[in-house]
Structures are given as structure tokens and as C-alpha cells.
């Protein structure tokens, strides 16, 4: 809705750019990365998966202002659900994704009923507690989840019965990239819809939104469930591409990492997830090989600098540059 107002009438080519431009950019960058680094496809696949996870945070935290540190619960729910589906029903991957999304949405609904009436520190702590309790349950229910050891050798059939997963992660890379583009496409539209604008309104001022008649709690529950579905898809992808599921998929560390990646990329925009995740992963990979301690220092300083001086994160920087070139170009 914003696009129509802030820019004047668009010509046909420009409209096309607005409709699928960003998605094509993601495909282009992904393919480029795969061509330049053919031996690191496993790593790039992981980036794709975490990007989808961080997109769920961009929606829930960035658009609706729900400050959660327990999003891993939904990622883990999706992973375990997809793994169990593959082991006991069918290893067909696309249905596994649907199951992951469903599991994420259902668990998010449960979590949301608990946490969404609260704010601030209480919300943070409730989200953490919920995720940790879920982790402990998964730990104890070893007969289903494999407990501390997790589940391994999860079967996964060829996609559409044709494209079989290979050991070089080529198919895994393409599969997760396609999922990422599809999720991004849908979320971009969600954000531009009346629902998305209402979310941003709720993030801005809940009392104001009640005063315009918005059913705030219902709205938050809905966006949180949608975010859970996206995180669940990411979890399912993780189970399918690595064929392994463990308790770390439910852990606080994953939730915190997601938030940090989003922060660096820029909280207010979906694009923040797409910039922050590769930046975080690549910098970590590079510095960790030099000295693991330096990695913590770098990420700590990055966070401090981002909050104090670059409130829009990497996306903010990118956006400013884009506006400047647009203005000087036109």
C-alpha cells in the first residue's frame, strides 16, 4: 500500500520491477554464490534456511513488534514434525514442508495464547520459558524424538518424484533457494496488505489501534501464527536437507542468533533478514577460522555500532544508497 502512495504513477517496466524485482535479485545472488563457491553449497543451503527463519522474525518482531526470544520453538516444531512425517508417513518432501508449516503454526498459536497479552521483559521471558519447556519435553520424550541424540537418517524422496537429493547439496541448495524465494514473495505481499499495515500500526501504538477498533490480540495471534508457519518451514527444510534433527533446533541460542542476524540486517524491513543472515554467517565463518574469540568481539561491536549509529541496519544503508542513485538518475 505504501508503494502506490509514495511514488507517482508507474510505467509498465517499473511496475514489473516492483512486482518481482527483489525476488529475482535473491535468485540471482543465490545462483551467483553457487557458481562462485561450488564447494560450499552446504553452507549456502544453511544460509537459505536461516534466512527463511529470520524472515519469520522480521515479520513477527519487525512488523508487529512482538519481542520474542523463543522463535526456535517453532523452528524446532517444524523440524521434528517434518522428520516424524518422513519417518512414519511418507518421505515426500513437499508434504513435509506443509506439515512443518502446520506444526509451526499450531505451536505458535499455543505459545501466542500464553505470551501475546504481555509486553517487554515478561514477553521475552515467557517466550524463552515456553521454548525451553518444549526443549525439555523433546528431551524426555526420547522414544519419539530421540531425546538428546536426536533423529538421524531421515529419509527424503526426490522432489516431484524426479529430482533426487545429491551428496553435493546441489539439489538441497536449489530446493531451499526456491523455498526462500516463495516465502519472500508471499511475505512481501503480506507486508503490503491491509493486514500488514495494521500490524505496523499495532507495533506503533496498541492503544491507538484499539481506539480505531482493531482487535489487537486476534491480530497479533494471527501474525504470530503466520510467523510460526514460516519458521516451521525453515525447520522442515533443515530436517530434509541435513537429514538430522536435534535439540539444538529448539535452543535459545538459535532464537538469539536469529534476532542478532535480523538486527544487523535491519529490523524494520523483510530485506533485513536477507542481508543480515549472509553477512553474519560469512563474517562468522571467516573470523572463526582465524580466531573464535575474535568472532564474539566482532559481532558484539557490530551490534553496538548498529544500534547506536545504523538503526536501519545493513538494509538501511542499502536503502539510502538506492534512493540516492534513484534521485540522481531520474
Amino acid at each position: 500500500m505504501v508503494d502506490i502512495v509514495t511514488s507517482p504513477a508507474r510505467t509498465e517496466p517499473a511496475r514489473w520491477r516492483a512486482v518481482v524485482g527483489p525476488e529475482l535479485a535473491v535468485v540471482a545472488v543465490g545462483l551467483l554464490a553457487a557458481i562462485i563457491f561450488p564447494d560450499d553449497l552446504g553452507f549456502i543451503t544453511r544460509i537459505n534456511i536461516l534466512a527463511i527463519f529470520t524472515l519469520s522474525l522480521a515479520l513477527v518482531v519487525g512488523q508487529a513488534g512482538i519481542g520474542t526470544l523463543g522463535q526456535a520453538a517453532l523452528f524446532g516444531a517444524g523440524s521434528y514434525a517434518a522428520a516424524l512425517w518422513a519417518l512414519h508417513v511418507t518421505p515426500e518432501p513437499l508434504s513435509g514442508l506443509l506439515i512443518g508449516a502446520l506444526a509451526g503454526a499450531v505451536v505458535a498459536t499455543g505459545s501466542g495464547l500464553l505470551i501475546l497479552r504481555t509486553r517487554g521483559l515478561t514477553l521475552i521471558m515467557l517466550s524463552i520459558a515456553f521454548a525451553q519447556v518444549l526443549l525439555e519435553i523433546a528431551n524426555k520424550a526420547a522414544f519419539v524424538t530421540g531425546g538428546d541424540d536426536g533423529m538421524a537418517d531421515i529419509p527424503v524422496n526426490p522432489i516431484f518424484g524426479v529430482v533426487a537429493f545429491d551428496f553435493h547439496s546441489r539439489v538441497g541448495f536449489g530446493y531451499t533457494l526456491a523455498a526462500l524465494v516463495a516465502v519472500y514473495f508471499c511475505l512481501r505481499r503480506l507486508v503490503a496488505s491491509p493486514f500488514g499495515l495494521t500490524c505496523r500500526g499495532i507495533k506503533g501504538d496498541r492503544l491507538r489501534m484499539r481506539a480505531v477498533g482493531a482487535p489487537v490480540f486476534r491480530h497479533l495471534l494471527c501474525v504470530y501464527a503466520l510467523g510460526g508457519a514460516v519458521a516451521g518451514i525453515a525447520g522442515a527444510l533443515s530436517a530434509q536437507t541435513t537429514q538430522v534433527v536435534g535439540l539444538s533446533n529448539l535452543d535459545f541460542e538459535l532464537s538469539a542468533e536469529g534476532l542478532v542476524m535480523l538486527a544487523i540486517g535491519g529490523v524494520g524491513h523483510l530485506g533485513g533478514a536477507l542481508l543480515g543472515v549472509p553477512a553474519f554467517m560469512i563474517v562468522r565463518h571467516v573470523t572463526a577460522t582465524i580466531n573464535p574469540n575474535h568472532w564474539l568481539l566482532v559481532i558484539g561491536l557490530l551490534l553496538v555500532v548498529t544500534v547506536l549509529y545504523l538503526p536501519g541496519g545493513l538494509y538501511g544503508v542499502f536503502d539510502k544508497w538506492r534512493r540516492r542513485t534513484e534521485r540522481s538518475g531520474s
Partner: protein
Amino acid sequence: MTERLRLKGLTKSFGGLVVASHIDLSLNEGDRAALIGPNGAGKTTLVNLISGALAPSGGDIHLDGARMNPFDQASRTRLGIVRTFQVSRLCRDLTVIENVCLPLIQRHRAAFRLWPSSRRDRAIQNEAATFLEPLGLADKAGRRVAELAYGEQRLVEIAVALALKPRVLLLDEPAAGVPASESGVILDLLSRLPGDLPILLIEHDMELVFRFARRVIVLVAGAILFEGTPTEVADNPQIREIYFGRAGH
């Protein structure tokens, strides 16, 4: 004249502190009423009670004959009880037009539309523009609210309220915090509001009250002390004492 809003015996107390005491009030179609009283009299509390932000300890509120008591704030807004805030509450990071689209989205029941539709969304934006034009804010539609002057923000707040097509409008000090140079626009706007809409205006600015109101209600310590025309209120010695202090000041 049909009755729109009716308060009967409305009471609110916090423990031992009574902030609203047996308030009986009715607003008819087209009423222009002002609610005045010293600080702490409970004017904003009354607005909170009517709008549903506060639950009463006793008494009833009826809108168009229907009992409002069980409904929460959001529901009452949807039914037509609309209020503005004493200190501007707009979504500062959103643009002016986005702020006006928010109530329209609620009114058109489009809040759970998860996919944009350019026909529907453009229609909403055009409608939002119609609320901004009479306020002279059409050219500022794309600006973030945080960039606007405070007086302009107060106008946007009223636009948001009007966009809800209220059955009753409660304006909580619309000119508060606005420099004198900008308050003229607000005054002008008040005179152009829909004729059949009952409006309850809370104000300290007596000039505004006299120019706007046909009825003045004086609230002191949570209870209605007096109700009458502006002239009657101005001539009343008791009220003069409350407002202007004891003789000699």
C-alpha cells in the same frame, strides 16, 4: 431529536477514590456539548469510561438504545463511539495517509486481508485522501507523522476519528499543546464537522468553548455540577469561583 448516547448513573471508583460519581448525561443528534472543569475533575476519565478504556464500577452506557457495558474499547469503536486523545497518539513512523488508512481498514473489515489488491487498496487510499483534503493536509499525505508540526498532527488525529464514521465523537482537548498560530485551523475544522454528529468536546480554552458549544457541562470532582448554555455557565457565580478563584485574585 433522537437520542444517541445516554449515560445513566455512571460511577467509577478506585478503592476509596471516587473519580466519577453518578453521571447522568445524554447526547442527541447534532448536539454540540462541551465538558469543562478544573484539573483532576475527571473529564478524561469520563471519556475513558464512555469509550471503554475503563470499566465502570456502576451505571450504564447506551448507544442508540443498545447497552455498551459488556463491550471493550475496540468493539465500542466499531459500534460508533470514537474518541481522540489529549496528547496526540498517532503512529509516528507511519505516513499521514497510512494513519488514516488504519481506521478505514477496520471499517471496511479488511484487516485480515493477507494479500494486497490494488483495486481495494487504492479505493481505501482515495477515501483516506478525502478526509485529508478538507484539512489542507493532502500535500502532506506521504510524510511521516513525526515530521509534521504538532498542530497538523492534532488535525490528523481528528481525521482518523472522522474516518471511523462515528455515531458519537469525543474530542479530548483537540487544541491542547497547539501554538496559537495553528489553533485557528482546528477551530475552523470543528465548525465544519457533520451536522448530525453529536460531539462532546473537552476543553480548557473558554474561547473555543463559547464559539463551539451550544451546551456546557461542568464537571467537578467526578460529578456534574451544572449544565446549561454557555452564557448561563459564564454568569454562574459558583462556576466563576471554581475557575477564577476566590474574590480578590
